[in-house]
C-alpha cells in the first residue's frame, strides 16, 4: 500500500506502508543507531515524534518481548529505507510489521532516508504528516503538507502527561522487571540496599533494571508527584527520568526538583537532567536537529576519558546559563554541548545522555554506581 511522509516545508516522500495504516502527525527526527530499533520504538522520549532510522535495513532481527523499553511502541510513525519482512534471530518473536500493526504504529518504507536526514540536518527537525492510502486508494500529498504545517509542534507542549505512569508502583512487581538479556549479575530485590523514588517522565525500563542491578529498590511515581510526597516515602535517593519533548512547560516537575535539592541525593538522565538544569536556574533551548544515536562521544572531565554514548534529545541545557553552584562534568565532543553536571554542595548530578544504553554502548554504566555511592555517603 502506498504511503506518504509530508514535511511542513512541502517536501513529500512517497513510499510503501508497513505496520499500521491511517494518518499521524509528529516531529520528524532521525536516529543514527545501526541496531536497537525496537528499543528506539519503545522509548517514551520519542513520543510525539516520527522517527526515521538512518541505517537502511530495519526489521532484520524481528522484535521480542525482552527488548521493550516501556509499555509498547511510543513513536508516532516509523520511517525506513527497507523493511525486512524476514526476521532472523533466536530471540525473535514477531516481525516488525506485525509488532507495529498490533500497536497501531504506521510505518513507511522504500524512501530515500538519507535525503530526508540531510534535509533535517540542514533545515532542522520539522513537523511532518505520515499517512497511508484510504479505502478508495486516495492519498493527497498537498493536504498532508497542510496538516504538517498546521500541527503545533513540540515546543511548549507537556508531552510527559502522555507517558508518565498514572499511579505509583514498585518496579520489582512490574512484569517487565525480570525480562531482558542482561549481564546476569542482577541483584535480587530482597538484597536491595537503597530505596529510590524514580520520577517517571517517560522512564525507560533499562534504567529501572540498571538501578535494580545496582542494589536499588525502586518506587516509580507519576511526574506530578510533589516533593512532599516523595520525601514522605523516605527514599535514600531520587531519580529523575528521561522523557519526551520540551522541559520548559513542566513547571510542576521543576518545582519538585527545586524542593528536593539538598534534601536527598538526586540523579537525572536526559529530560531529568534538563529539569535539574532548569531547577538550578539554568535555561534550555531546542537543538537544530538533536542528538539521536549510539555513537556520540562524550568527554568525562574527571577521568579525561571519552565515553561513546547513547543519546536521544532535542532540547539541551544552555551551558552558559548554569549558575556557578554546579560543575560541568561531561561535554559532547561533536558540538561542545553540555552532557553532564554536578552540584558543588549537594549530592546532585545528572547527564544528558543515556548511561542505561539500550540501545547503545555500556561505556557510562558507572554512573549508576556513582548514584549508589552518593546514597551510601548521604
Amino acid at each position, binding site marked *: 500500500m502506498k504511503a506518504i511522509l509530508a514535511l511542513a516545508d512541502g517536501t513529500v516522500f512517497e513510499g510503501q506502508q508497513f505496520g499500521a495504516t491511517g494518518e499521524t502527525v509528529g516531529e520528524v527526527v532521525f536516529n543514527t543507531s545501526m541496531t536497537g530499533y525496537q528499543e528506539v520504538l519503545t522509548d517514551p522520549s520519542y513520543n510525539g515524534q516520527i522517527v526515521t532510522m538512518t541505517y537502511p535495513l530495519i526489521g532484520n*532481527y524481528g522484535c521480542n518481548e525482552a527488548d521493550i523499553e516501556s509499555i509498547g511502541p511510543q513513536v508516532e510513525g516509523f520511517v525506513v529505507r527497507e523493511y525486512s519482512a*524476514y526476521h*532472523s534471530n533466536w530471540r525473535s518473536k514477531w516481525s516488525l510489521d506485525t509488532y507495529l500493526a498490533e500497536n497501531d504504529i504506521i510505518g513507511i518504507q522504500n524512501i530515500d532516508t*538519507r535525503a530526508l*536526514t540531510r534535509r533535517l540536518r540542514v533545515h532542522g527537525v520539522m513537523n511532518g504528516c505520515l499517512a497511508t492510502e484510504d479505502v478508495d486508494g486516495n492519498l493527497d500529498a498537498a493536504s498532508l503538507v497542510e496538516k504538517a504545517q498546521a500541527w503545533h509542534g513540540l515546543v511548549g507542549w507537556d508531552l510527559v502527561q502522555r507517558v508518565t505512569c498514572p499511579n505509583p508502583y514498585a518496579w520489582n512487581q512490574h512484569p517487565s522487571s525480570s525480562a531482558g538479556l542482561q549481564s546476569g549479575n542482577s541483584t535480587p530485590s530482597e538484597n536491595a540496599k537503597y530505596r529510590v523514588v524514580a520520577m517517571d517522565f517517560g522512564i525507560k525500563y533499562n534504567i529501572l533494571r540498571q538501578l535494580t542491578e545496582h542494589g536499588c529498590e525502586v518506587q516509580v511515581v507519576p511526574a506530578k508527584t510533589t516533593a512532599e510526597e516523595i520525601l514522605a516515602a523516605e527514599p535514600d535517593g531520587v531519580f529523575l527520568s528521561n522523557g519526551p519533548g520540551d522541559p520548559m512547560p513542566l513547571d510542576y516537575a521543576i518545582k519538585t526538583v527545586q524542593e528536593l535539592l539538598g534534601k536527598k541525593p538526586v540523579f537525572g538522565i536526559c529530560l531529568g537532567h534538563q529539569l535539574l538544569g532548569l531547577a538550578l536556574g539554568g535555561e534550555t533551548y531546542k537543538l537544530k536537529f538533536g542528538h539521536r544515536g549510539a555513537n556520540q562521544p562524550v568527554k568525562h572531565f574527571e577521568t579525561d576519558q*571519552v565515553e561513546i554514548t547513547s543519546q536521544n534529545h532535542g532540547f539541551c541545557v544552555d551551558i552558559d546559563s548554569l549558575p556557578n553552584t554546579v560543575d560541568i562534568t561531561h561535554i559532547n565532543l561533536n558540538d561542545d554541548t553540555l552532557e553532564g553536571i554536578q552540584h558543588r554542595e549537594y549530592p546532585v548530578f545528572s547527564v544528558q545522555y543515556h548511561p542505561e544504553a*539500550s540501545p547503545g554502548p555500556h561505556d557510562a554504566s558507572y554512573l549508576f554506581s556513582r548514584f549508589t555511592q552518593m546514597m551510601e555517603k548521604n
Partner: protein
Amino acid sequence: MPKRTDIEKILIIGSGAIIIGQACEFDYSGTQACKALKEEGYQIVLVNSNPATIMTDPDFADRTYVEPITADTVELVIEKERPHALLPTLGGQTALNVSVKLAESGVLGKYNVELIGAKLPAIQKAEDRALFKQAMEKIGLSVPTSGIAHSLQDAIALIDQIGFPAIIRPAFTLGGTGGGIAYNIEEYQKMVTTGLALSPINELLIEESIIGWKEFELEVMRDGADNVVIICSIENVDPMGVHTGDSITVAPIQTLTDKEYQEMRDSAIKIIREIGVDTGGSNIQFAVDPKTGKQVVIEMNPRVSRSSALASKATGFPIAKIAAKLAVGYNLDEIPNDITAETPACFEPTIDYVVVKIPRWAFEKFQGTDETLTTQMKSVGEAMSIGGTFKEALQKGLRSLETGWFGFDNHPLEKIPISELSSKLTIPNVERLFYIKSALKRGMSIDEIYGYTHIDPFFLYNLQEIVDFENNLEVSMDRPFIENGDQTDSKSVSLLRQAKQFGFSDRQLSDIFDVPENQVRELRKKIGIEATYKTVDTCAAEFEAETPYYYSTCSSEDEVRPTDKEKIMILGGGPNRIGQGIEFDYCCVHAAMALKTDGFETIMVNSNPETVSTDYDTSDRLYFEPLTCEDVLNIYDKEKPNGVIVQFGGQTPLNLANALQEAGVPIIGTSPEDISRSENRQLFKEVLDEIDLMQPPNGTATSSEEAVPIAASLGYPVIVRPSFVLGGRAMQIVYDEKLLQEYMDSAVQASPEHPVLIDKYLEEAIEVDVDAISDGQITVIGGIMEHIEEAGVHSGDSDCVLPPYTLVDEQIDQLKECTYALAKALNVCGLMNVQYAIKNDEIYVLEVNPRASRTVPFVSKAIGVPLAKLAARVMAGKTLKELNFTNEIVPEYFSVKAPVFPFNRFPGANSRLGPEMKSTGEVMGIDTDVSRAFAKAQKACGYTLPLKGNAFISVRNKDKRAVIFIAKKLTDMGFDLIATHGTAKVLLRNGMDVELVYSIGKGRPTIHDYIKNHAVDLIINTPTGDLHRTNELLIRQMAIEHDIPIFSTIPGAAAAVNAIDALQRGEISVSPLQDYHK
C-alpha cells in the same frame, strides 16, 4: 596527550611481496602511516622488499630500504639508521613476526629501539594460542574447547577430548596458513604435521569445531588514555568453517539485536585491554551460536589487518592513519575526523548503506588442487561494493568481481541433480552463491538451504527476493514498454526502478528482456532512472562531509555536485587477481598525484578496498564503484571529465575502452584503435611488417581443425593461447599434436570471435622486457630488463635484471631502435611495454602492450624516475621535453625482480612454470653487484640461499654440458653434490665427487628421502620435454613444502651459484633508495 617529542626517527616495516592473505592492504596501511607520521615531523625509515608499493616511493619515507624483510637484514638497517622506535603493527603478519624476532633476540634492546603501538608481551599474548586462551578465560569470555600441541603426540592426545571435526590453527601464521579442518585421524595427522612445520614456533591450537555458527568481526581502536572505540562491525555471510578472507562479508552486522551487539562490543573492549595493545587497531573475531546466541571469541589480530582496510573503506574512517598517530602519543579525541572536519576521531562511525565484500579466487590457475573453501585462505583478491540495500550491494559486488557475472546470475550448471546440488550447497566452494540461486529457482525452501549451508536465513531471504523479483520481471514486464519507454506506463516504470533498486545491472536486464544492453540504458535514461550518488561520511549524514567519497544507489536524491574544473578520470584495476594487482594500482595512484600537481581535478573509480587508489585522499573525488561499462558511463555522465585514462588499471579498463569511446567518452593517451592494433594479431602483423620487425612464426586458428596444420607448419613446440588475455591465462607450450588436440578440446573454446593464437616457441631464447614512455614525438626508454629464465616462462613469473647483465651494446641498441619504431608506429602516448626474445642474435617481438605494465613500478624504483607520473602528464598534454625527461637513465647498480608464488596454498596443483602466470607478487633486490642483488631478491622471496651443504642436481640431456660449470663452482665453494644417474655420470667424468641417488621409481634412496631427511639445501632440476613429468613436479612440490631453493633453468641455477659465491665473499650491506638515486 600530545605527540611524543622524545622520539624523532621511526622505523616502519612493510609486508613484502603480495601473497595470499597479505596483499596491497598493507601498502595502503603503510602508506597512510608514513604520510601521517611524516606530517607530524618524524623521520621515517622504511623497510619493504616490494617495489610495487606506493610506500616505497622515495618521497614517502626519508630513508627507503628496498631490502628483504628478515630479522638479520632489518638489523642491518637498524644498525645503520639507529631509529628510536619501531612501529610493528602496520605491515601485516610479516612485519609483526620480524619485529617479534628482533625484540626477542635482543636486537631492539641492543640498539635502544622502542616498540610502539604494541609491546612484545601484548603481541605474544594475542598471537600465542595458549596465552590468548588463558587471557580470555581470565576475563570471563568463552573460547571454543581447545588445546595446544607442540608435537604430533600432543595432538593425538588432545583429539580424544576435542573430537572430530577438529580445527587446526598454527600459531603466528598468516591467513590460516597450514590450518584446516580434519574430519578423520588420517587427515588430522597430516594437517598437524604440516601445521607444526609452518608455525614459526611449532605450535598448534587444536580447536573444537563450531562449523555453522555465525561469524562476526569487530574492528577496535584504543589510545594511550585507554579510550576504546569500535570502528566497524562485520558479519560473515559464510558461517564458521570458511576463512573470513574467503567469506562474503557484510558491514555492518545485520542479524544481531542491540543487546547481542553490545555484549560483543563489551567483550571486544575487555579483550583489547586485557591483551594490552597500547594504541592502534585490532581485529577481533567472534562466533555466535544461532540457536542460543552464545558468543565465543575466536581470535584477535593485534595489528592492522585486511579487515581493517575493508573497515576503513567501508566507513571512511582511516584506521591505519589514526593508528599511526596514536602510536606517537596522540589520543583519539585530539585527532580530527577528516571527513567531517569539525568532529573528533574519537567516536564510532555509523553508516547508512550496506557494504558487501566478495573474494576473488584463482583456482583456474592451480588445477588439481582441492577447491573446497576452508579455514585456510585461498582467495587472491576481493571486491567491495556499497549499496542502499544488501541486495543492491551484493549485485554490485558480484559484477565488480569481473569474473563474468553481471550480478546474482544463473549458474551454468543450474540443472544438476539435486543430490549434487545439495553437496554444492553443503561443501563451501567458490560458486556456492550461484548454486543457492539454482536451489531457490527450483523451489527449495530457505529452511532447507539453511540446513545445507548454515548461511543465515536473513541473507537467504534477500537472495530469494532477488530471484522472485527476477521471475516477476520476466513475466510482468510489458514488452512494448521495453521498446517505446512509455513514461505513462507507471507499472512498468516502477518495475524497472525496483529492478535497479535491487541492484540489477543493465546487462542482466538486457539478458532478461533479450535486447542489447545499450537499449536498456536508453530506456532507463528516457524514463529518468539514473544512478544517484551518495557520500560515505562516517556519520550517516549527521554532519556535513568534507571528503568527496561516493557510491551509487538507486534513490531519489543525488548529492554530488560536479565542479566545472578541468578534470581527468582514472579507471582502476578492480579486484586483485594473478596478473593484475598492486602494480596497476600503483600506476593509477601516480596518475592521480601527478595530474593533481598539474592542476587537474582527479576522479578515481575502483572497486578494490585493499588499495591506495581507493583512499579518499589519493584523488580529488573517489567513486567506489564496479568497473563495468554501465557504472563507468554513469559516472562519466555525471562528472563529464575532460579525459579518461584507461591505460593504467591493467586489462580491466582497457576492456572497456572501445565501448566507452563509442559512447563518446574522451579516452586520453594512446587511442583504443592503436591499442587494438597491438592486440589484434592481423593488425599487429601489419604494424611489424611496416617497420620491418620480426615476430616468431605464427598463425591464428578459429577451430581445432585449423590449429593442427598451422602448428605442423610452424613446427613443434608451439605456444598456444586465446587472444586477448591477461597474465597468460590458458597459455601453454605444446610439444606435439596430441597435446595440441587436448588443449584445443579442453582448455579453450575456439571460435571466429575468439580465435586461438599459435606461435612458434623459440627454445632457449633470451627474453627481454622493455618499458618506455612516449609523448608522440619522442620515446624514452624507461628500462631494459633481461630475464634470467629463458623465453617461455611468463614475464610475470621470471626473475629479471635491470640493466641487462649479459646483453652486449649492439643488442641493447637494437632493442632500443625497435622500441622507438614500435612506439611511433602505434602512436603511443603514455607508457608502452614490449617483450622481446633474442635467439641466434635475432630480435623477435613477442608482445607489445601500449599501456602501463606490471614492471613500471619496478623500473621507476630502479632508475629513480616516476614513469607513471610522467606518462599521466604526457597523456594530459605535456611533452617529455617540458617534463625534462628526454634521456634514458642506465643505473650503475643492478636491480633484480623476483616473483613469489602461492603454491604452498594449493597442494596438488601443477607448480611448473610456463607461459601462464602463477605468481601473486614480486620483490626487488638492489646492489652494485648483480649476484648480490639476485641473492637479496631470493632472500626477500623467502629463499635464503645456502652457503654450504648438499646440492642436488638432475638436468635434462641438453643441459648436461652447461651444468658442468655450475656443479664445478658448487664443489669449489664447498658444496657436496648429489645427482641422479645420468647427471652424476657426467659430473664424475668431469672430475667431481658425486653421491648418487636413484631416479624416482628406480630404487631407494631417491631425492625424496633426502629432502625428507633435510639432507638437501639446494636443488637444480631442469625439466625434460615430457609434459607429464610427474617426478619433476613431485620434486618441485616437496622443495616448496620444505622451503628449499629450487632452480629449474640453467640460467637461474647459474645466477644462484654466482649469488652464493658473492654471499660467501662478503656480508650483504643495505642502502636506501635515496642513496642509489643520488
